[in-house]
């Protein structure tokens, strides 16, 4: 029994010693791995950023083999001389193998190094990159699909404009809100009250304002023929200048240059709600029989449309601002929704350029509808059958419409 007890104690001690030794060895091995130098990133390649106007270089590298051993990120160093002083220009997070230096001068040659940094602030420096210069390119080939589809649509626009210029009739369906324009102007004439035209609150660089001013031209021409008073308060000085020119031309083309007054179009203020306060004041004091809200609008849309509604005016609105359309639909008699605004501009002017543009855009819509239907069917067949044939075709359609950042 005693012998067994000694044997058991000896075995336990031996086991403990073995365990301690093994653990110790493991610790030594672990500490060895921490003490071993951090391996640097490799294969640092610096290239000119493609498809840009110059001033940018892309730096790529192969991740440090110690990436999983506490690397916190990579510091990018730059110099204009291989032996000169390198300065830090940026930091890329762990796992990143790409950095865009967007602050280069095209006339200078640059050299790059990448430092791997770990949690203990150990650093490890890569080899030097080859010399590189940034330069500008004429084309960004990442946007080739944009060029093709845009080119197709623009080609269709040019074709239809040429077609319209030859005097050939281009069919456009009737737009409900437009039929009410003449009726609304006639009503104001009968009632002897003015017509209020609000061309939105954005500047002439917004396409909706441009469409609004085009419609103003057609409205002003009819107003000139009917000899009704027009009031166009604007919130932008350039819009005021353009609206003045447009209304003046409309009066001249209607043969009523004598009836034109500089006071028809006037500036109020650029401030959104200051403008609204003024327009509301004009509405309740002048009581226009017809109010047009054609252009780009924001939060002021409902305030103006509700005031116009309260004075019993016929209201015709048109905007492509998705958030404001519900208010115009609710408070106005007719609303030109989204692209109807641009279509109305073409329809009213009857100009070959505008009509051709609209027809060309319809070609774009056919392309869009076809792509959605074909792409969705291919995706569905792929989801059902798992066939790589359908999968690759679906991917092709996706790629045709994808915008890849260069």
């Amino acid at each position, binding site marked *: 029994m005693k012998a067994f007890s000694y044997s058991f104690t000896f075995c336990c001690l031996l086991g403990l010693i073995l365990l301690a030794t093994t653990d110790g060895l493991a610790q030594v091995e672990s500490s060895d791995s921490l003490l071993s130098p951090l391996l640097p990133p490799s294969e640092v390649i610096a290239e000119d950023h493609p498809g840009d106007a110059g001033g940018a270089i892309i730096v790529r590298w192969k991740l440090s083999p110690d990436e999983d051993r506490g690397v916190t990120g990579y510091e990018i160093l730059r110099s204009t001389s291989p032996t000169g002083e390198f300065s830090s220009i940026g930091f890329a997070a762990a796992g990143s193998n790409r950095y865009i230096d967007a602050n280069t001068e095209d006339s200078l040659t640059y050299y790059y190094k990448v430092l791997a940094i770990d949690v203990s602030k150990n650093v490890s420096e890569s080899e030097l990159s080859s010399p590189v210069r940034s330069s500008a390119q004429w084309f960004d080939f990442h946007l080739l699909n944009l060029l093709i589809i845009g080119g197709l649509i623009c080609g269709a626009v040019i074709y239809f404009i040429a077609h319209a210029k030859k005097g050939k009739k281009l069919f456009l369906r009737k737009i409900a809100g437009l039929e009410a324009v003449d009726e609304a102007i006639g009503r104001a004439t009968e009632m002897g009250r003015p017509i209020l035209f609000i061309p939105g609150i954005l500047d002439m660089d917004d396409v909706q304002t441009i469409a609004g001013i085009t419609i103003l031209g057609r409205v002003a021409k009819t107003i000139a023929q009917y000899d009704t008073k027009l009031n166009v308060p604007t919130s932008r000085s350039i819009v005021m200048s353009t609206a003045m020119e447009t209304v003046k031309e409309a009066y001249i083309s209607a043969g009523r240059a004598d009836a034109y007054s500089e006071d028809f179009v006037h500036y109020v203020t650029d401030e959104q709600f200051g403008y609204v306060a003024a327009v509301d004041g004009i509405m309740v004091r002048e009581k226009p029989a017809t109010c047009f809200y054609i252009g780009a609008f924001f939060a002021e849309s409902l305030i103006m449309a509700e005031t116009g509604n309260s004075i019993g005016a016929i209201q015709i609105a048109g905007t492509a601002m998705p958030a404001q359309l519900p208010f115009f639909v609710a408070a106005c008699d007719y609303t030109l929704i989204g692209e*109807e605004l641009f279509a109305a501009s073409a329809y009213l002017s009857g100009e070959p350029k505008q009509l051709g543009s*609209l027809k060309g855009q319809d070609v774009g819509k056919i392309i869009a509808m076809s792509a959605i239907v074909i792409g969705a069917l291919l995706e569905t067949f792929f989801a059902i059958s798992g066939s790589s044939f359908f999968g690759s075709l679906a991917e092709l359609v996706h790629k045709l419409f994808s915008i890849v950042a260069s």
Partner: protein
Amino acid sequence: MDSVFSHTIAAILTIGIISFLYKDNPLYKFCESLFIGVSAGYWFVQQYYANLLPKLFDNLGITKLVGAENAPEGALQALFLEGRLDDNLLYLIAGVLGVMMLLRLSPKIGWIARWPLAFTVGSSAGLYFITYFQSNAMSQLQHTILPLNSFNNLVLIVGTVTGIIYFYFSKEHKGVFGGAAKVGIYFLMITFGASFGYTVMSRMSLLIGRIDFLFGTWLGLVK
């Protein structure tokens, strides 16, 4: 004391603007005129300090030319003193276009004002073509090409295609095409309804903000 005074002024102006809900009145007219006058003046000053001074006068060196202290040297100094063509000289084109715009004040040469307008409209249309085409057409198309294996995808695809059909102007809305366009306008109206409700709620929060100011900050009745 200052805050009590400023809060009282703000409250009177708020009440003045809200009084429009009852009817047009002298207090509203006063507030309206004050608002327009102050905002127009503010925008002029803001435009001067945000655009005219730093972008035109400083970049060209006009500020330095008129003898302003600490004014930076601009493109004109670079041209005439160093014989160098500075990039900022391009601002001269913008300045000339701005002056051309003012020529409308003269009836004889007012036609010149059309040139800067044509430049603004034409360049904006050209510049925005790519941006709009990418975000409003290409990107939306790419994200609509989905398999028809869920109700959400089906709604998205049918809604988009019928919506485009509604905005197709080269064909009369009759027969099957007209039916599809009608489905498209239903989709639009449902979207508008949801958007309307959402925005009305956000407007209510604005109203609550003003009422909180009147009864809390100003009168101290709401803690």
